């Protein structure tokens, strides 16, 4: 039996002899592997972006919206009726065992003034647990306390965008800003968070105690009313039971019978985002599958050329057999040739795919991410293609009758 290094040398020589043909054959695999890697990179990038957005929003997040008003038979949609209260939030916090944090939220858009700068931004009134629910750390300063909430202190925390627009280089902590002409002391600064899944700038926010928002900024006819309640479940496994507990507590508090429509809506945001992630995953698989087709077409190209090569080199095969090449010596020679074509094509394809993904992110602005797994997968797959499509020609070569092969012109 021929040794491996000699077999490699024999095969490489044959590939070198037909340089253009070898290059064109490899091109099929190069394009296939490149396409697989680029497509997987696009898909993985999309998934990664969605995952980052989920993390940014806060994990295990449930939102409770007030119910719909029905005015003259026309139902007005979720959130049109002010039915949620601070009491609801407290009750959920106390009684729902699957819930870790509850943050009632009342907010609105208001004009904010500091010195001679002014800025219109969104004011969020809530409790300190909002920062746990949204998983949003304070960059500097402090968050407001339960005491601040109880006494409706006029303190606020600012998002990055607000600071940039109002303060510039000045340190905002300790400064007084006026929201709707009410003076507030800045006590803290939030870490930047970037865009929300919906494309909103999440750093264009001011946080104040919910009671202050109710009494000083967005007073309504219903004292203690809140716009929404944000809830964080203890874990992903607890999401369903948290939802159920919230429904039960609110139904009881709002005196809603089994047959009545509830006057609130519970939304599992994480679930929605997970659905989005799932669809991105399916997209990745789909793109990968389509790209794999080109890899298989490349493999057929290799098989085609190897069959031609076997026919062309019938006489050579005959000579090798006459002087003692065994079945597997011949098979190995042609298998290695096919495998070299596909693996070398695979390596060039990887380089092409990686630079293609980079180019896509740079030129088209798509988030792409080349995972090491996709590289290993594409390389392994191109090897398999080489073996699969190389085997038949090698097999055919090994079955030639040496007498006929020697006579072949």
């Amino acid at each position, binding site marked *: 039996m021929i*040794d491996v290094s000699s077999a490699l040398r024999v095969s490489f020589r044959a590939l070198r002899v037909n340089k253009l043909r070898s290059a064109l054959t490899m091109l099929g695999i190069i394009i296939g592997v490149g396409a697989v890697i680029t497509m997987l990179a696009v898909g993985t990038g999309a998934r990664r972006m969605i995952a980052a957005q989920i993390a940014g929003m806060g994990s295990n997040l449930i939102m409770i919206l007030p119910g719909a008003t029905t005015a003259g038979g026309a139902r007005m949609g979720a959130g049109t009726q002010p039915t949620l209260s601070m009491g609801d939030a407290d009750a959920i916090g106390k009684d729902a065992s699957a819930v870790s944090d509850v943050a009632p939220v009342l907010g609105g858009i208001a004009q904010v003034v500091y010195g001679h700068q002014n800025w219109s931004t969104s004011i969020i009134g809530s409790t300190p647990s909002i920062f746990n629910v949204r998983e949003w750390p304070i960059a500097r300063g402090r968050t407001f306390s339960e005491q601040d909430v109880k006494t409706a202190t006029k303190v606020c925390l600012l998002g990055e965008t607000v600071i940039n627009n109002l303060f510039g280089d000045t340190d905002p902590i300790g400064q007084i800003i006026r929201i709707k002409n009410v003076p507030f002391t800045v006590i803290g600064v939030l870490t930047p968070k970037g865009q929300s899944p919906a494309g909103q700038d999440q750093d264009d926010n001011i946080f104040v105690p919910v009671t202050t928002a109710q009494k000083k900024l967005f007073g309504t006819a219903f004292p203690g009313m809140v716009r929404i309640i944000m809830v964080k479940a203890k874990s992903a496994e607890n999401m369903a039971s948290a939802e159920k507990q919230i429904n039960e507590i609110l139904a009881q508090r709002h005196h809603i019978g089994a047959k009545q429509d509830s006057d609130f809506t519970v939304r599992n945001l994480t679930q929605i985002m997970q659905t989005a992630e799932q669809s991105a995953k399916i997209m990745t698989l789909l793109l990968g599958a389509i790209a794999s087709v080109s890899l298989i077409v490349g493999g057929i190209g290799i098989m085609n050329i190897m069959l031609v090569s076997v026919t062309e080199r019938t006489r050579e095969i005959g000579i090798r057999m006459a002087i003692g090449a065994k079945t597997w010596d011949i098979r190995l020679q042609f298998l290695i040739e096919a495998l070299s074509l596909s693996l070398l094509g695979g390596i060039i394809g990887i380089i092409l795919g990686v630079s293609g993904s980079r180019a896509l992110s740079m030129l088209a602005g798509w988030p792409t991410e080349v995972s090491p797994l996709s590289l290993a997968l594409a390389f392994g797959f191109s090897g398999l293609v080489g073996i699969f499509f190389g085997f038949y020609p090698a097999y055919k070569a090994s079955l030639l009758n040496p*007498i006929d092969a*020697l006579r072949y012109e």
Partner: protein
Amino acid sequence: MALIDVKDITKVYRLGDTELRALDTINLTIDSGDFVAVMGPSGSGKSTFMNILGCLDKPTSGAYVLDGIDTARLSRDELASIRNKKIGFIFQGFNLLSRTTAIENCELPMLYAGIGVDERGRKALAALKSVGLEGRQHHMPNQLSGGQQQRVAIARALVNGTPIILADEPTGNLDSKTSVEIMELLVKLNNDSGITIMLVTHEHDIAAFAKRTIRFRDGRLVSDEAGTK
């Protein structure tokens, strides 16, 4: 014991209903160190006979014992191994691998014998030297004359230390002067190294170099005589 012992060998080709008897009960023994010229018109069965002797083909019936090994029951790969170790082939058309240097052509049989790269190079070079091709080892076949190509083929046939050389009209493509040189080389190998040579030829003056001449006609061995010279 004879090196080659052929008993009642018959080779039958079936083409549809017609039966072609290419070889009809051939009996022959060849001792080690013999130099046999095989003659006969084309279609006489001598090529079929050589193919069987070369373990490239199997007889329909009969026994062929080569160096004590009964070849009838051997598999394809076992026959390949026998060819590799016992038989060196020389062809009319040289049958060197193109775009492959003389020394690499010479190394081929050792490649399939599993001999290491250093020993291959050393032995191939020695074989090329013994056929008078020193300094030509890195030439491609198309850079060599016909006679030189046939010398490379002879070196390749020798290199594994095979006891038998089967030469199928080795001088058929060569001019008479080169033919004589090649034949003298074969005679020298036969005399000096004791290599058994079977030589197919149409030409009497080539057959005259052999110690013994056998003739085929219509699939039968019709004559077997020593020293035609």
